[in-house]
């Protein structure tokens, strides 16, 4: 391997081939991020940000959204991955259908859910009215309910991806372990506790952390469903940053993001370490 590394023609071509990405990285990551941080250097922008009555409810929304959406999604994904590993023809077909929410763009389906939840004409409240004779709740104009619906939208869209990841994890567990457990008369729960979970734990936790970062950046599920309304009470940090851009308050937009960095960067660092750790193991 080291003999291959020598040879200046090879290094030169290596440099030429890697250069385009380096330019993209410098031009569209390094420059924007440094410039943005420079814009956000002023302590005053944080002060006015904290004084904005929208800010603290947004932080609370973000934390609740993250904790509920990610955990609920992963418990469901863990459960459903146990369902999808069953070898049945119809389950294989179902898994093909199940991936649709993840494979299609966000706008059509989120708009569809938004219309279903419309308090006056939406199919959900029509159904409630027909079954009970009562008016259904104002799904999207009550901030609490609207955030809950954003969680539902997020899970609807992201659940298939993580379920498939966990299915792959479960399929990697040697069958003999389950067979041995069956011979010993283990119950379903005992098999999960002593065979499945110990093998799946690391994957589950890494996936949860990665999903935590990405859910923090989930703009679509909130914005396309509620647009931050009513009265800017359903924002999360991702949509709040964009709101400030629309209001032409770029320093506030940047400050919003900087506020989240102490939380994001350790997670990013952990994920990077984990991925490069894997690489050392394989090479």
């Amino acid at each position, binding site marked *: 391997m080291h003999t291959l590394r020598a040879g200046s023609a090879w290094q030169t071509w290596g440099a030429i081939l890697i250069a385009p990405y380096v330019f993209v990285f410098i031009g569209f990551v390094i420059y924007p991020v440094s410039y943005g941080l420079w814009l956000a250097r002023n302590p005053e922008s944080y002060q006015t940000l904290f004084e904005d009555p929208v800010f603290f409810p947004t932080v609370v929304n973000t934390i609740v959204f993250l904790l509920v959406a990610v955990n609920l999604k992963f418990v469901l994904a863990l459960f459903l991955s146990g369902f999808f590993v069953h070898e049945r023809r119809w389950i294989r077909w179902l898994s093909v259908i199940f991936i649709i929410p993840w494979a299609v763009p966000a706008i059509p389906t989120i708009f569809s859910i938004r219309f279903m939840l419309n308090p006056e004409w939406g199919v959900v409240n029509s159904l409630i009215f027909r079954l009970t004779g009562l008016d259904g709740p104002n799904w999207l104009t009550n901030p609490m309910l609207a955030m809950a619906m954003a969680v539902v939208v997020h899970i609807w869209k992201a659940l298939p991806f993580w379920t498939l990841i966990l299915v792959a994890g479960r399929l990697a567990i040697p069958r003999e372990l389950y067979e041995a457990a069956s011979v010993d008369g283990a119950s379903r729960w005992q098999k999960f506790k002593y065979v499945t979970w110990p093998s799946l734990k690391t*994957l589950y936790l890494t996936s949860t952390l990665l999903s935590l970062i990405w859910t923090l950046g989930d703009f679509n599920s909130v914005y396309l469903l509620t647009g931050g309304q009513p009265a800017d009470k359903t924002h999360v940090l991702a949509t709040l940053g964009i709101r400030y851009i629309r209001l032409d308050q770029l320093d506030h937009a940047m400050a919003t993001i900087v506020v989240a960095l102490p939380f994001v960067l350790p997670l990013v660092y952990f994920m990077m370490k984990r991925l490069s750790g894997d690489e050392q193991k394989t090479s």
Partner: protein
Amino acid sequence: MTNRKLLEEARLWLIGIPVLLWTLIPIYHIFLFSISTKDSAFSGRLWPEHPTLRNFGTVFKQEHFYLHNFWNQIWNSLWIAVAVGAITLAIATGAAFAISRLKVRGGRTVMNAALFTYFIPAAFLAVPMYKAMGNYGLLNSRWSLVLAMVTIASPYAIWVLKQASDKLPWELDEAARIDGATPLQLFRLVYLPLMVPSLVAIFTYALLLAWNEYLYAFLLLSHENTIPLAVGLGHFLASDDSPWEILMATALIYGMPPAAIYYAFRRYMVGGLTAGAVKA
């Protein structure tokens, strides 16, 4: 024993049916609206009394205020998606080859930089990106969205291609060298042909990412002539009495191509997807 088996089957169906409904209801809702007339759309029926394709006609003939630029927008979407797919593929293939096969100096650092970008939530990068595109004078040019999406798609692309490339046997490189091949010949004659499945996966991934993107599209492009269909669809929300049936017909037209492409290339996608996302 058979009783227990029956119980197990029943348990599986009890999970499977709710999963099917949960997945399909929002999608069926789109379809149902798109084939309903304005009056019957809200009747609450599972199938419209008079199913119609008129909504699609309205869209194709651009007969609604929100749809005056429908064909232009769909062209923009396509143009941007293909450009992002092609540029991402070119950039990522070169970078992965340089890092994995040529062992270029600093390759590891570049890989880490790419991974860093991959893990930062895209919605966070959007704010500084918007400002930078303004400084570059690219706002409202389709190139701003293309370059932004290339930035977002490349890290995962490089990661997946590097993983695939690392698996190719070193003897190939050594044999090529002994035969006096240049790096470019190795790249063209050995590397590219062996990497075809991964290259297809990456092109598809970047293409779909760009076609589906909403946030960056609506931030960077606002001029009527440059916006893609995703942003055009967002305009329907400007008023409360939007024509839902027409919006849903447009949404269906917009959502079908990526779904079709995804399923056509699923064979390539799933492998790359699981390998790249989280290695167990």
